[in-house]
């Protein structure tokens, strides 16, 4: 329990520090925040009034507490470019991001674990080498390059799938696969090595000697043990997916949180950039915390401390 409490306190501290860091980073922005809202012909007096209205002339730490107070009361403010309510934007785009992220997350495990098991059972055969070469490729190819290749192949040449857009199931396939590629490759490798470690162990030999069928040894006993490290590292995949989503969403025109954040940064729409980066940072921190919890689940010894 102490481990759990310790990691939770640590998570909350990290959350507080990173919210301050994100806030400062975006507020210190070199660009003029008023440029996004006012036309180029606006006078300096107009800009000054807007800064005053937006509270940009207060000291930054004061702005931080004002901002956090507003967030807690549910007032997220408006976009500077089209005046849309940020609370509405986050619900709409957040839903899209969760669909894409969840699809990628499921793919990582539903494809990665069986392939890793297959490779370990067929150790050193053609199947094993084929799967492992694929996984090396999956880790080596930059995902934006993979995205372009898949668009070229499946959209332009074969015409099977749409190249971009949202939110038909057909349009989800390519971005989800590209987003999942690296995590799947890692999961294949981890599953294979975890399975092999158990397959070679003495207790497996004992089970076999006891006359248990190979399917039962692998399916029930080895697989369960191999699953522990995979589950315990599942939380880390969340952070990875959040990071890559920034690029994949832009390429495939998937209107999720990442795409909005990148556009907001490019347009200097700082209230949007502020809140959406905060959302993504919170997701990453929570993902890392889940990884800690998974570690706890996988290591019963930690529970006694």
């Amino acid at each position: 329990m102490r481990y759990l409490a310790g990691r939770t306190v640590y998570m909350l501290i990290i959350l507080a520090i990173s919210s301050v860091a994100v806030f400062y980073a975006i507020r210190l922005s070199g660009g003029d925040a008023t440029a996004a809202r006012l036309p180029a012909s606006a006078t300096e007096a107009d800009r000054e009034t807007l800064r005053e209205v937006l509270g940009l002339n207060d000291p930054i730490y004061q702005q931080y507490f004002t901002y956090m107070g507003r967030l807690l009361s549910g007032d997220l403010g408006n976009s500077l470019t089209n005046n849309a309510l940020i609370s509405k934007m986050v619900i709409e785009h957040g839903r899209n991001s969760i669909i894409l992220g969840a699809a990628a997350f499921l793919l990582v495990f539903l494809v990665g674990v069986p392939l890793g098991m297959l490779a370990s059972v067929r150790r050193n055969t053609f199947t094993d080498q084929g799967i492992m070469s694929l996984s090396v490729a999956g880790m080596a190819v930059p995902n934006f390059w993979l995205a372009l290749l898949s668009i070229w192949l499946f959209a332009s040449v074969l015409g099977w799938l749409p190249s971009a857009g949202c939110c038909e199931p057909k349009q989800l396939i390519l971005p989800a696969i590209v987003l999942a590629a690296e995590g799947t490759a890692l999961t294949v490798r981890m599953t294979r090595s975890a399975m092999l470690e158990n397959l070679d162990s003495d207790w497996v030999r004992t089970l076999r000697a006891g006359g248990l069928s190979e399917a039962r040894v692998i399916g029930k006993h080895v697989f369960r043990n191999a699953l522990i490290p995979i589950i315990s590292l599942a939380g880390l995949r969340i952070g990875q997916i959040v990071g890559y989503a920034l690029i994949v969403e832009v390429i495939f025109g998937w209107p999720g949180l990442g795409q909005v954040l990148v556009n907001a940064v490019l347009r200097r729409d700082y209230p949007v950039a502020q809140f959406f980066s905060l959302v993504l940072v919170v997701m990453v921190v929570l993902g890392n915390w889940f990884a800690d919890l998974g570690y706890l689940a996988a290591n019963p010894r930690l529970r006694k401390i």
Partner: protein
Amino acid sequence: MTASTPESYLSEWDRRLLEFEESRHISVFRRGMRNLVRNRLLLSGVILGLLVVGAGVLGPVIAGGDYELINFSNIHAAPFSEDALLGTDHLGRDTATRLFVAIRVSLAVAVGVTGLALVAGLAIGTVAGFRGGWTDRSLSGVMDFIWGFPLILVAVLFAGGLGEGLLSVILAVGLVNMAAIARVVRGEVLSLSEREFIEAARAGGLSNWRIIRKHLLPNILAPALVLASYYVAVAIIAEAALSFIGLGAQPPLPSLGQMVAEGRNFLQLNHWETTVPGLALVAMVLSVSLIGDGLRDVFDPRLRHEAKGLES
């Protein structure tokens, strides 16, 4: 990619050679040079790398030409057309000229990021591992904190704070890679500090600075360099990805990711505008990975352990 484990990598002849070199105190780097020639993967990586570096450093000088020059009378030209070796893009700019400059940008980012990450990572990791106690706890805490965030997200935050451009990319990627290197270096230093030769140096009354400089650094430099070669690839890919989404190199300065992004709208018309920078990117990453894998084979500390084990 290299399937060679240390055990299979060492033939009986290799073992004897290593043993001989250990006894004669032939330096790690001279042994490295010998292995460089014998290790084909490393050699091909080095050759490919030299080609890429040559293209980036000498290309713009030799090819000349203005990478910003727009020529609407000759857009989407195919490769090997008159006076455009690799064709032109949607503004009629010469792809070859832009490619050389883009490779140069990529190299500059890779060198900047890795230099920053390696120097800072080595310094922080060594101090944390060597001093221990509160110094270690606070430094490691900060490094873990940074390392916990995905690289692209950090880079987007930097772009939000400092404005998009290569400076943000270098600082963000450098920061995350620094944390990664510092974590590994700290671990290495911690395990080395337990060893007898460091204890002996302490007992001998050497100053901390001297122990670090003369005894610790030479032992962690090889693994740190191998690690750094991996992060060169990370830096190249990250820069390309960020330039691709518009947060990296700003036009008119070309970069590989940005050229790929610009060309992808004209895939049907002239796919070379995308394929050429894409292949250059693959070549860069491939050469760095080959060099990294080769270096790991050559400098792998486990190899030296084995040789020492044979000696005693």
